[in-house]
C-alpha cells in the first residue's frame, strides 16, 4: 500500500455523523476500528487492501451480474407445458398486468441499483488505484452511496426461494442458472461493501476546490477560502 497518503487529511478531528460529537480520531492501525465515544457509531474502519480487494470483487461481480440478468431464474413444467422467467421478465409481466409502479420498483431494486452500484464502484476503485483521482470521482462515490440501499439482491434471492416453495405446491419447478448467479451476486455485493474503506478513497481524490490530496497530514486550517465556492 502507498503509505505516503494519510487516510485522514485533518488533524484527526471529526464530528460523528450520527450524533455530531466532536472528537479526535486516534491513530487507527490497519485492521482496526474506531467508534464514537458517545453513540457507538463506527467512525473509522481501516481495512487492509481496501482498494485492491474490493476492485477484484467488483470485477468478479460484473460477469455474474450479466448472467443473473440474462439467464432464466427458474422454470416450471405442468402436464407437458413449460414456462421460465428472468428478473426483467418478472418486472415486464407485472407491467403488462397493470402494475406499472410495482414493475418499476422491482426493476430498480433488482436490476438497475445493483448494476449502478457495481459500475460506480468499479470506476471509483479504478481511479483510486492511481491517485490523485480526478474530482468527478467524488460524485461517483456519492452516487454509489446513494444507490446502495436500493440494491436488494439478497432480498430478491429470498423472494425467489419463497416463490419456489409456493409454486412447488402447484407444479414442478426447477431452479435455473440465473438463480445461482443471483446467489453468488448476493455474496459479492456485501463483500465489496465491507472490504472498501471510503476514507481511503477520499484521501486519494483531488479536492473540489482544486487541491491535490495531501501527502502529509496538514490540518485544514478552517479558513474561508478553503470552503466556499460550488464545484
Amino acid at each position: 500500500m502507498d503509505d505516503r497518503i494519510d487516510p485522514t487529511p485533518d488533524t484527526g478531528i471529526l464530528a460523528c455523523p450520527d450524533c455530531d460529537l466532536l472528537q479526535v480520531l486516534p491513530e487507527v492501525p490497519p485492521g482496526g476500528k474506531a467508534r464514537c465515544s458517545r453513540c457507538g457509531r463506527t467512525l473509522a474502519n481501516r481495512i487492509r487492501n481496501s482498494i485492491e480487494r474490493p476492485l477484484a470483487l467488483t470485477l468478479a461481480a460484473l460477469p455474474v451480474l450479466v448472467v443473473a440478468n440474462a439467464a432464466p431464474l427458474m422454470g416450471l413444467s405442468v402436464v407437458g407445458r413449460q414456462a421460465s422467467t428472468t428478473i426483467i421478465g418478472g418486472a415486464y409481466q407485472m407491467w403488462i398486468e397493470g402494475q406499472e409502479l410495482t414493475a418499476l420498483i422491482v426493476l430498480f431494486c433488482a436490476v438497475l441499483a445493483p448494476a449502478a452500484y457495481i459500475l460506480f464502484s468499479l470506476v471509483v476503485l479504478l481511479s483510486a488505484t492511481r491517485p490523485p483521482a480526478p474530482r468527478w470521482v467524488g460524485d461517483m462515490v456519492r452516487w454509489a452511496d446513494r444507490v446502495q440501499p436500493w440494491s436488494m439482491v439478497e432480498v430478491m434471492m429470498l423472494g425467489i426461494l419463497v416463490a419456489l416453495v409456493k409454486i412447488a405446491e402447484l407444479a414442478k419447478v426447477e431452479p435455473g442458472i440465473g438463480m445461482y448467479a443471483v446467489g453468488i451476486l448476493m455474496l459479492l455485493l456485501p463483500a465489496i461493501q465491507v472490504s472498501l474503506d471510503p476514507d481511503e478513497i477520499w484521501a486519494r481524490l483531488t479536492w473540489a476546490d482544486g487541491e491535490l490530496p495531501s501527502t502529509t497530514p496538514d490540518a485544514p486550517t478552517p479558513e474561508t477560502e478553503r470552503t466556499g465556492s460550488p464545484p
Partner: protein
Amino acid sequence: MTTAALSGARAGLVSCETCGLLSRPVGSAEPGYCPRCGKRLEWRRPRSIQTTWALVVAAAICYVPANLLPVLGTTTLGSTEYDTIMGGVVFLYTSGSWPLALIVLIASVMVPLGKLVALGYLLFSVQRGSVKSNRERTRLYRMVEIIGRWSMLDVFVDTFTVALVQLQPLMSVRPGAGVMFFAAVVVLTMIAASTFDPRLIWDAETE
C-alpha cells in the same frame, strides 16, 4: 463524557454528510460547499422533522390497503382465488413450510409496522426535546435503516410467482392492487429513514 460533550454545530463546524470532512462554513445561515467533495453543506438535514413526518403518515395510509387488498389472484380453470399478504403467510404455514411463513410474516407485516412505530416514536421524542436514552434511540434508528429493505420480500415473491405461473388456460396468477400499496410502504419508509437526522436526537442534550 457528558460534561465535555461539544457538538460540531456548537463549535461552529460542519461535517460533510458525504465524505465526513469537518470544515468551518462560509456563513452560519448558508454553510456553503464541502471543500473536498463539493457537496452542499448542511448543519442538519433540511426540514428533517416535517419531511419525515409527511413520509411516515403517507406510508401509514398506504399500509392499510397494502394489507386489506389482495396481492395475488390465482385463476384455476375459470375460478379465481384472491390472496392478501396474510393469506400468503397462512398458505405457506398450512403447506408445511412454517419457517418461510415466519420469515414472510416478519418481513411483510411486523417490519413495516415496526418501522412506522419506531420512526413515529423518534420524531415524537425529538420534538419533545427528550434527552433520555439517546444511545438506544440512535441504535433504534440504525436498525430501522438496516432492516427496512427486507420488507420488499413480498413484492419479489409476488413478482416471480406472477411471472412464472402463466399457463393459460390451465392456471394463471395475476397481481392485485395490494402489491402496489405494499411496495409504496417500503419505498416511503426507506426514504423517511433517510430524511430523519439522527443528530437531532442529541441536539437537546448539547444545548
